């Protein structure tokens, strides 16, 4: 067998604190990558995976340095190269695709100018030829309108498109090695599938050797041949991707794999469907811009959304970015004024503005928001933050408030010493637990969880979801769980509402989300969540008939305001009614489904015949 293309031996990276001793970030890491192979670096945030990937380009972030070890990349000793040598090496022999393409592009230049940059900077080819090559790469990346997309500016393109353009930029100089640093983490699942597919086909076609940094094991299964599991800057386990995903040997790898397989909530826990709902949302409209003929805003973020939250149950709201999930949370909690519609909470009407709600209503409905870094006041101690809620809502004195605070911390599984610390001294998971404890301090009836696990590592997120489910059972809480993550949704929810473009396209039982007849978008969404199974991506691409994300279905029409927002991507487009609306909501008795589609459930069942079998085979894997 030939010598490996990348060989790292005993790599150490240390960071220098300003006063303290040097801190080791990466310790004694060794691995090899052969020609044409893709190696995945897996780990949680802070495990050193990006740091290691960057050292392959001879780069250490400011304050860090490569302190020991040998890095051999495509025949170069990267750790011994000078700045001049590195400049010629980077972007030509090794190139890099960063996590957030949205911020990696310069908004003032067209994408073509930026994609050409590496080729022109390295004098690889004349401009004319480079442009031809760029268009060819755009086509290989399955970008829409490859001839003309280069003339556009970054803000005119979607996140998924920018991510693919960035990969095209990295491939301009025909590098031997490409480093992908979490390139799909910031994307919606439906977009992620396309981007992964595009990456995979160019990697295969061009014989590229890849290093793929990610925390998502399901992505690893699709794209990597071999994997290295990292923790605290050391290698925990190395092996083939399949072995690590299916038969991890080290305890930490097992924990990581287990966290990616959250068990769906048992159907037996379903609350009584006939009980009075705790919250009813009817015909909610939120928007901006000038008023239309109905006296409602012309541009709508939420368009006539109706939902019910069963008492003691959990309603999940799922949808891609920009579908209006967070606006919904803000409108329900009274932070965003509504243009029309009504909210009924425990039989009382809720005012649109939080200032006009009674203290009792505010207490009983609590919002737990997404970013725990921003939601805890950094100037306060954790104890003071929780005490304040108790004093404010329950009029407790300082002593009893502190006792209750310690009890709450215990409830969310935090040690009492946390009370004396400030948010800056806590980890992301701990902050999110405090955030949850603050909502519980009010003793609410309903908590609104807005993407509470989105910013957390899978292991930490799984633990938070466990705690939430336990607390809900113990305290009899109702809950609205807003997320873009289908795994998390299935772990905690009873009912699910699928939101798209400000419309609820479907409402159904969470347990039956992967079986029976569904709205085409629901089907696309549930089919796009990567499974930890080699070959899953091929299956998905093979059966892409009902829904064609991004690339579109060729109808080339946008839905009107009351039409179905899925029209441009729908594979079972049904004519003008879909575009103009109003789209009828049909009830499918099995699983109490409400589907907003111009097709009848029977017709949908006929148009999507493979659904049942397919999911029975793979349902256990998710």
């Amino acid at each position: 067998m030939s010598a490996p293309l990348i060989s790292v031996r005993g790599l150490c990276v240390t960071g220098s604190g300003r006063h303290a001793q040097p801190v080791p970030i990466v310790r004694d890491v060794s691995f090899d990558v052969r020609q044409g192979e893709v190696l995945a670096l897996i780990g949680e945030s802070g495990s050193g995976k990006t740091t290691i990937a960057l050292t392959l380009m001879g780069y250490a972030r400011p304050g860090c340095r490569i302190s020991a070890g040998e890095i051999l990349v495509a025949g170069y000793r990267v750790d011994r190269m000078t700045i001049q040598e590195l400049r010629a090496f980077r972007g030509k022999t090794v190139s890099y695709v960063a996590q957030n393409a949205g911020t990696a592009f310069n908004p003032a230049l067209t994408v073509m100018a930026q994609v050409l940059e590496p080729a022109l900077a390295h004098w690889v080819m004349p401009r004319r030829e480079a442009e031809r090559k760029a268009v060819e790469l755009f086509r290989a990346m399955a970008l829409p309108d490859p001839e003309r997309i280069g003339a556009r500016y970054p803000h005119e393109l979607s996140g998924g498109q920018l991510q693919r353009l960035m990969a095209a930029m990295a491939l301009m100089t025909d590098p031997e090695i490409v480093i992908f640093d979490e390139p799909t983490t910031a994307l919606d699942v439906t977009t992620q599938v396309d981007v992964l597919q595009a990456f995979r086909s160019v990697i295969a076609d061009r014989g590229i050797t890849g290093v793929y940094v990610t925390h998502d094991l399901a992505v690893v299964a699709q794209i990597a041949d071999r994997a290295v599991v990292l923790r605290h800057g050391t290698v925990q386990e190395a092996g083939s991707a399949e072995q690590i995903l299916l038969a991890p040997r080290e305890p930490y790898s097992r924990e990581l794999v287990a966290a990616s397989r959250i068990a769906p909530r048992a159907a037996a826990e379903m609350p009584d469907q006939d009980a009075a709902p705790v919250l009813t949302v009817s015909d909610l409209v939120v928007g901006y811009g000038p008023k239309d003929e109905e006296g409602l805003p012309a541009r709508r973020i939420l368009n006539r959304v109706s939902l019910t939250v069963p008492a003691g149950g959990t309603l999940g709201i799922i949808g891609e970015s920009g579908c209006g999930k967070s606006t919904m949370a803000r409108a329900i909690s009274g932070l965003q004024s509504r243009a029309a519609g009504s909210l009924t909470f425990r039989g009382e009407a809720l005012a649109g503005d939080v200032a006009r709600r009674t203290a009792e209503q505010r207490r009983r409905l609590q919002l737990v928001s997404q970013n725990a870094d921003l939601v805890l006041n950094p100037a306060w101690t954790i104890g003071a933050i929780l005490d304040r809620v108790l004093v404010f809502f329950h009029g407790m004195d300082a002593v009893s408030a502190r006792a209750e605070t310690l009890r709450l911390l215990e409830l969310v599984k935090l040690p009492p010493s946390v009370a004396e610390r400030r948010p800056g001294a806590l980890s992301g998971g701990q902050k999110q637990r405090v955030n949850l404890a603050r909502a519980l301090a009010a003793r609410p009836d309903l908590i609104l969880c807005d993407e509470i696990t989105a910013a957390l590592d899978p292991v930490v997120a799984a633990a938070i979801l466990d705690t939430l489910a336990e607390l809900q059972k113990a305290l009899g809480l109702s809950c609205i769980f807003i997320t873009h993550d289908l795994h998390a949704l299935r772990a905690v929810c009873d009912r699910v509402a699928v939101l798209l473009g400000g419309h609820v396209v479907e409402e159904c039982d969470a347990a039956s989300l992967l079986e029976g007849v569904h709205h085409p978008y629901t089907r696309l969404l549930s089919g796009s969540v990567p499974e930890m199974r080699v070959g899953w991506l091929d299956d998905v691409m093979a059966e892409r008939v009902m829904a064609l994300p991004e690339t579109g279905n060729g109808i080339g029409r946008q839905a009107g305001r009351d039409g179905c927002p899925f029209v441009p991507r729908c594979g079972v487009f049904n004519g003008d009614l879909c575009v103009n609306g109003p789209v009828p909501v049909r009830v499918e008795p099995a699983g109490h489904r409400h589907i907003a589609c111009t097709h009848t459930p029977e017709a949908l069942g006929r148009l999507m015949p493979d659904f049942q079998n397919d999911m029975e085979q793979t349902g256990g894997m998710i």
Partner: protein
Amino acid sequence: MRDLFALRRKIPPGTRRILTLLSAWLLLALLGPMLAPHPPGEIISGEVFGPVSAHAWLGTDYLGRDLCSRLLWGIRYTVAICMMSTALSCCAGIFLGIATTVTPVWVERVLGRLMDGLLSIPSLLFALLVVATAGESAPALILTMAIIYMPGSYRTSRALALRIVRMDYITAARARGETRSFIILWEILPNMTDPLLSDIGLRFIYAVLLLSNLSFLGLGVQPPMVDLGSLVRENILGMAYGAPAVVVPTLVIALLTVGINLTLDRGRV
């Protein structure tokens, strides 16, 4: 005492330095006159613009009075008047600056334009105008300088607060139903103390310079009271002789302003 040390450790070093320096000047202003060897108005020597001697530690002034005693009194007036006016202007400016980030938009529209108007008037000119019409009393001076420096403080604190008010913890407080003043004082203010302290220090320097200017022009502190600016003015004739009576007060003004400025700069790095 232990609590005090614990508190001291919590304050970042930059802030600690500026607080130490300001309190040192305040202490000198409070205790200085008690240490004065002579009453400030007493003529102790027949020699005017006398040199440094055992009898008159920093020489004598244009009437043969003891400069050291007069200087200690002058520091008291300069520091006291400037600190009071700074305190007034910054309290009002900071409160309004934060308040306009949580009140309806029209409040900031009106107040903001008013502040812009005040900012556009040259400070010395405005002070001269007020002093000329309202007379030269210490309270009038304090109030005038407070008005002059309020808009700057308002702008700075509003800019700082705008960044903080977007944070989710402010949203959480609003969702809880906290009052506006609670949000201003307990949620926003504690998160901007460090940059605000630098701003307050800077405004204090401006105030010292303006007061010295006014007194130098004869419109500031009036005899028998004395401040650093008027010390320079009354002894200006000594310039020709290189008398300590004019050099020392000038140096003290420089020490006060440049010293604070340097401390602020070090805090920022």
